[in-house]
């Protein structure tokens, strides 16, 4: 079969400060035939998006395609004139970008944007295009296909927007579809639905697709061929099976190692000899928090957390997992006193902390430290590493300059950074280095508890895995307890002793780490675990992860009834929609907020 897409010796460069050319993509070649899915995989900065955009005959500001050729069918994309490119883009090749929320124009209706390419390229009339769009919406399993297009982008969910963008790309029946990290911004439970729709569409339409991703497990589900990129060059290319089973390149192997879920810590052996049942280090009782105006009982209008309870022993790690918007960051901010709780109490060593940090003592502040998700924004880019770390040392410990310097050197050693990094500015560091400084800043206070809020989410797989290793090691070396917040169950499993599953601000399951390997627990936990892609082909077809195809929002989702009711695949009419779920202790010791264990027992 002749190749629909052929890239030969592609080279993209940017202009350096002195006007010299710096190649960011060098000598990249690959080809895909009709109906094939080719994956470009690599970490950020590997040039994968630059290549994907070059396929559209487009380079971002400052970049130029400086060499090679791209053939789509018989057309040499790089030889097209400016005018020809307008007719080519969005017509013969179309693009699905990473963040649908950003890629939709907020002030135009979805339908106007979906049919824009078809109308621009005069492929059909507006009416025909609308009818076609509705058909595509149906095939992508979007709810209310007839009317969803009349809405504005902010009115539909992230997973739906991502599918709507795929519909937008399919409108012109392109020869090549470029998917750039199309599920990275989604929750795993949403990702699986979107992946299924994409796979079906690609199979049904016989389109040639280029799938850009950093996630090997996702790629394993989608691709026929894999091209592994690093620093703008091809490290390895081959059929998916071959790359996954017998990777020839060392970099590919390190990617695979990072993608494997491993347990990095052994459970704390809290032996029975510990006679005095010491008070837990941190204890939350009935913590309720939210946003908006408070009503007469002091309760906020929009509640994010509903009576959350948890306890954390000295030196142990509690993982908190849940999808975006479930309240996990608010929980961390409530513990830290950044977001005062409306009700309930946060106790440190049996001592109740003031809801707002302005009323806490300096000693209390020192003992609870928070590490934010995005080190780019958490660290002042104009400050040096020394300044960043020196501040908590001076504030909490009143160290002299000399003592501080020694302590900083020790801290850098703890987070595995060279001591000579101290005088450098944060802006000059890499993402992984910044996240280590972010951790070191928390450690500088010599805290009892470190709250880690999605500390690996913004990092590449390999770098993120190294941060997890570091956290595991810090746990062993220091007597620090961690609250580790993440949406990624394998990250949570790899460093935590106990796991708390948060859904819509409620604890739906809490228990020992080893009990979270495949249920049965709370239906949401089971869905979460079975939605994480495995690093093997065929997983997507085999997995039984499913939610109800269409969430039934007519079910009463408020009050004390189960919050997961409208998405639950195993809900029981008559029980779940009538009475609030009980908190039951399952055989394995997990506490689960669900009717289901009851009927089984």
């Amino acid at each position, binding site marked *: 079969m002749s190749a629909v897409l052929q890239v030969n010796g592609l080279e993209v460069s940017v202009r350096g400060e002195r006007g010299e050319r710096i190649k960011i993509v060098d000598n990249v070649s690959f080809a895909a035939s009709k109906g094939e899915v080719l994956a470009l995989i690599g970490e950020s900065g590997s040039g994968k998006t630059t290549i994907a955009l070059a396929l559209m005959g487009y380079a*971002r500001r400052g970049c130029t395609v400086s060499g090679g050729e791209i053939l789509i069918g018989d057309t040499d994309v790089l030889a097209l004139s400016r005018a020809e490119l307008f007719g080519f883009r969005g017509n013969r090749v179309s693009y699905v970008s990473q963040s649908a929320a950003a*890629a939709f124009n907020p*002030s135009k209706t979805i339908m106007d944007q979906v049919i824009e390419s078809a109308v621009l390229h005069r492929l059909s009339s507006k009416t025909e295009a609308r009818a076609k769009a509705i058909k595509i919406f149906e095939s992508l399993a979007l709810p209310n296909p007839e009317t969803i297009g009349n809405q504005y982008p902010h009115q539909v969910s992230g997973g739906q927007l991502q599918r709507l963008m795929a519909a937008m790309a399919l409108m012109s029946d392109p020869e090549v579809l470029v998917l750039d990290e199309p599920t990275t911004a989604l929750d795993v439970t949403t990702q699986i639905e979107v992946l299924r729709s994409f796979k079906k569409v690609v199979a049904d339409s016989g389109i040639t697709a280029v799938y850009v991703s950093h996630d090997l497990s996702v790629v394993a589900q989608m691709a026929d061929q894999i091209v592994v990129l690093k620093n703008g060059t091809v490290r390895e290319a081959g059929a998916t099976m071959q790359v996954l089973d017998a990777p020839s390149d060392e970099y590919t192997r390190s990617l695979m190692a990072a993608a494997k879920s491993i347990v990095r810590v052994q459970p704390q052996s809290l032996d029975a000899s510990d006679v005095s049942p010491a008070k837990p280090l941190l204890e939350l009782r009935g913590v309720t928090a939210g946003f908006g105006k408070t009503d007469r009982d002091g309760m906020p209008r929009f509640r994010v957390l509903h009576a959350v309870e948890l306890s954390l022993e000295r030196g142990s790690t509690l993982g908190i997992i849940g999808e975006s918007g479930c309240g996990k960051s608010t929980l961390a901010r409530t513990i830290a006193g950044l977001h005062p709780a409306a009700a309930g109490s946060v106790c440190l060593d049996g001592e109740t902390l003031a809801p707002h940090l302005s009323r806490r003592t300096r000693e209390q502040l020192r003992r609870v430290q928070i590490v934010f998700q995005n080190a780019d924004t958490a660290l002042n880019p104009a400050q040096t590493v020394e300044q960043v770390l020196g501040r908590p040392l001076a504030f909490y410990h009143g160290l002299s300059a000399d003592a501080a310097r020694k302590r900083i050197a020790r801290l850098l050693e703890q987070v595995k950074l060279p001591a000579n990094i101290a005088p450098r500015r944060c802006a000059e560091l890499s993402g992984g280095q910044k996240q280590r400084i972010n951790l070191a800043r928390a450690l500088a206070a010599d805290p009892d508890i470190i709250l880690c809020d999605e500390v690996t989410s913004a990092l590449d797989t390999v770098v993120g895995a190294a941060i997890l290793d570091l956290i595991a090691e810090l746990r062993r070396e220091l007597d620090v307890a961690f609250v580790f917040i993440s949406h990624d169950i394998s990250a949570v499993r790899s460093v935590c002793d106990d796991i708390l599953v948060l859904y819509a601000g409620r604890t739906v399951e809490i228990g020992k780490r080893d009990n979270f390997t495949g249920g049965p627990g709370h239906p949401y936990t089971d869905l979460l675990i079975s939605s994480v892609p495995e690093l093997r082909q065929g997983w997507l077809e085999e997995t039984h992860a499913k939610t109800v195809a269409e969430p039934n929002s007519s079910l009463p989702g408020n009050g004390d009834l189960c919050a997961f009711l409208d998405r639950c695949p195993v809900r029981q009419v008559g029980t779940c929609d009538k009475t609030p779920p009980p908190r039951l202790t399952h055989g394995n010791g997990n506490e689960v907020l669900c009717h289901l264990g009851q009927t089984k027992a």
Partner: protein
Amino acid sequence: MLMILVAKRILIAAFTLLLVSFVIFAITSLLPGDAAQELLGQSATPEIVAELREQLGLNQPAHIRYLNWLGGLLTGDPGTSMVSNMPVKDIIGERLPKSLILAGLTAAVSVPLALLIGILSAMYRDSRLDRALNVVTLSMIAVPEFLVATIAVIVFAVQLRWLPSITIVSPDASFGELARAYALPVMTLCFVVVAQMARMTRAAVINQLDSSYVEMAILKGARPTRIALQHALPNAIGPIVNAIALSLSYLLGGAIIVETIFNYPGVASLMVNAVTSRDMPLLQACAMIFSGAYLLMVLIADIVAIISNPKLRHQ
């Protein structure tokens, strides 16, 4: 939701205007000099001055005078001019329409021009056109308007003799005569306001052109004009109308230099006359008009920005 937001803005504007009225009254009361003394001149005996003060109500306590004045304003009677003894309403009634015509004409020319310059330089960012427009708009901001007006008079009125150097409009003037009469003052005022609006428009549109959805539109095959007008502009309306409102609100009160140079009878020069002659009721009324116009422009801009935001329009 939308109506509540708009109603809130209107209430806030009304409250601000009330505060402004208080400030205006307080400041004009602090101005040195006494209107009675000023009216009667140096030779007046203290008894006559005192009598006049009594007549003018200047002896009453400040808060009573404030309330009387505010009540008058609300019922449409801002008092009587101390200098000409005419109702302030009539004096302003004669001048305000002229100022509004000048401001309206300037807005009609400057807003489209500024939008055109701003959008073009955003579309062709860093190109020669953009750089040329940048130099032009920056020099327009930098050159003071009295210089622009003077040079314009020398070139167009004195040397070329194309246009009149003072603006006198007779009620039965033809359109051509009107255009000739207003050309120079409108041009000078445009010089002042276009640059500001154009630069804000450029910044707002560029901000949108850098967004992901614009890249998506490029990848769908949309042409630059369509991208700028259909995709970027609707999202840039908020900041643009605010820049326009701020620039245009200058046209009523800030036109003093232009009014003076072209001998145009507008409210700005009226206010300056009121200051020199200590004519407090007239001065206060003019200040209220300028503040009111300013607040109205900002209010309209706010409401347009709210309505143009689909997140507020479609909850």
